[in-house]
């Protein structure tokens, strides 16, 4: 059996049914732009600040786009039992969840580059290392999506998925160095920052976009990849334990 036919069609269906819907597209456009505007107004900064804000805005766009969409769509399908159809398909659980998460990862990737478009008109992005930015965004999308999967497996109602994802997401905005450097946070909070995967992704983006980063980039890549793998494995284990009763 060609398992990739199943993989591709699950991905395609999710893109058509959930991610490419007008409300999601407009959310993906409005959300990062609103954040950018908010920080500009709040800080009173000039255009020279665009490049410093860009990593945070990109990261937050990925984080919100991926976690909420995946958690909600999977919980919705679980609730109306259409997810059972996928569990009955003769494909491995790993491949199934990989296909379910791929849509969210792609959505996150696209969301990340929405703020880059206006930034390109407002600031000089010639120094940006795109070869580092692209894999970093991909890893942030993967880690955030798997966080969404972890949330989806932990809840049973759609509203719980939203609430539970906010429980993780809002502290991450302040703790992961998106807009405030991690090292400027109170010392007691810093260990918490380094326990969150997004911190490492954002560190890479800061390094690649304006050259300031805390850890060596290879170490950031390694840690966020490790987080992604662990979140995926925990989610698979939870699916086995909680969904295949």
């Amino acid at each position, binding site marked *: *059996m*060609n*398992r990739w*036919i*199943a993989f*591709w*069609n*699950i991905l395609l*269906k999710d893109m058509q*049914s959930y991610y490419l819907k007008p409300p999601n597209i407009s959310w993906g456009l409005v959300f990062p732009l609103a954040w950018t505007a908010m920080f500009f107004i709040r800080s009173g900064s000039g255009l020279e600040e665009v490049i410093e804000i860009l990593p945070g805005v990109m990261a937050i766009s990925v984080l919100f786009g991926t976690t909420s969409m995946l958690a909600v769509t999977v919980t919705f399908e679980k609730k*109306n*039992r*259409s997810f*059972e*159809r*996928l*569990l*009955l*398909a*003769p*494909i*491995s*659980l790993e491949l199934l969840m990989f296909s379910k998460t791929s849509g969210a990862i792609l959505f996150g990737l696209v969301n990340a580059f929405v703020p880059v478009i206006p930034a390109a008109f407002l600031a000089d992005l010639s120094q940006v290392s795109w070869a580092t930015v692209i894999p970093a965004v991909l890893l942030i999308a993967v880690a955030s999506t798997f966080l969404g999967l972890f949330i989806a497996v932990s809840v049973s109602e759609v509203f719980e998925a939203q609430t539970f994802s906010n429980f993780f997401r809002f502290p991450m905005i302040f703790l992961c160095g998106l807009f405030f450097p991690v090292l400027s946070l109170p010392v007691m909070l810093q260990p918490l920052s380094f326990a969150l995967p997004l911190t490492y992704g954002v560190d890479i983006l800061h390094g690649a976009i304006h050259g300031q980063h805390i850890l060596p980039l290879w170490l950031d890549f390694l840690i966020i990849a490790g987080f992604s793998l662990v979140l995926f494995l925990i989610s698979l284990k939870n699916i086995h334990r909680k969904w*295949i*009763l």
Partner: protein
Amino acid sequence: MKNDKSKIRSPNDEPEKLIEVYDLTKSFESVQAVNGISFHVNEGEVFGFLGPNGAGKTTTINMLTGLARPDSGKIRIAGYDCSAHPKAAQHLIGVVPDESNLYPELSGFDNLCFCASLYGIGKKERQKRAENLLEQFGLQEAAHRNFSGYSKGMKRKLTIAAGIIHQPKILFLDEPTTGIDVASARQIRQLIREMYQAGTTIFLTTHYIEEAERLCERIAFIVNGHIVQDETVANLLQPLKELKVLLITMTHDSGNISGKLAEAFPGYDFRSVSQQHLRVESEQTISIGPVVRFIEEQGAEVTEARQIKPSLEEVFVEVTGIETDVMKTEKNGGPS
């Protein structure tokens, strides 16, 4: 649909056991849903799994199809050890759950194509199969309407179509006619017969006794997680061949009269089946006149007295001790 029914068995051939279940158990917290059941399903037969709600039918299907893990016991499907490897036989099976679970936002056609793609079927082939099934199930006109706008009967038919689009060797049908209109239920039963004739092995759960009797070759009665009987329909009905049954409807409480009737007519068995219904059973011919007169002498008015053909219902009541009204009233509707 599968067309390998052409395999001709000689009368001496042992039928191949396609599903084998040994000592299967499953509990949810303190509830023992399935308690040490063993049975088998032969290739090409319609096997009925009959029991009231909560008997363990759906839990058993879930374990057989890989949606639930057994606590203990063994499952073999087409030779695959599915207790150890629940996904091993999933390419051979189709499942129609008790509730339609297709995608509400997709059209009927797209739902079928998507379900086929899960089994690795290429685009052209799945489109062809989807078109054929929509025609076969009388859903061509609704093919491009969203599933959410379908009626209950249409949803049920499309769910069955989705369960067979990959031409499974074994089809699990969980309560296929529950809660749908008479015409759709009849059409679904006809489709089940056609699938059987095309060679598909069918595992059917139902709480409609009449439906099981009409469709199945062999039936297992499951009650409180135990299989209390597993036999061919012909063998189950054999003892009833000589039995005569009369159903009397009256204006007074039948429970008060049945004792007196038993004394007056010792050759007959009288049983009050509801407040106004009395059932008379005997292996001799029942003389309706004297019985009716006796009842009327007791001050009750008989509104109807009719002979009925004994059915599987009698066997079920006898074996399980469960009144069939319990089965009929637990879910809406009934077989027609």
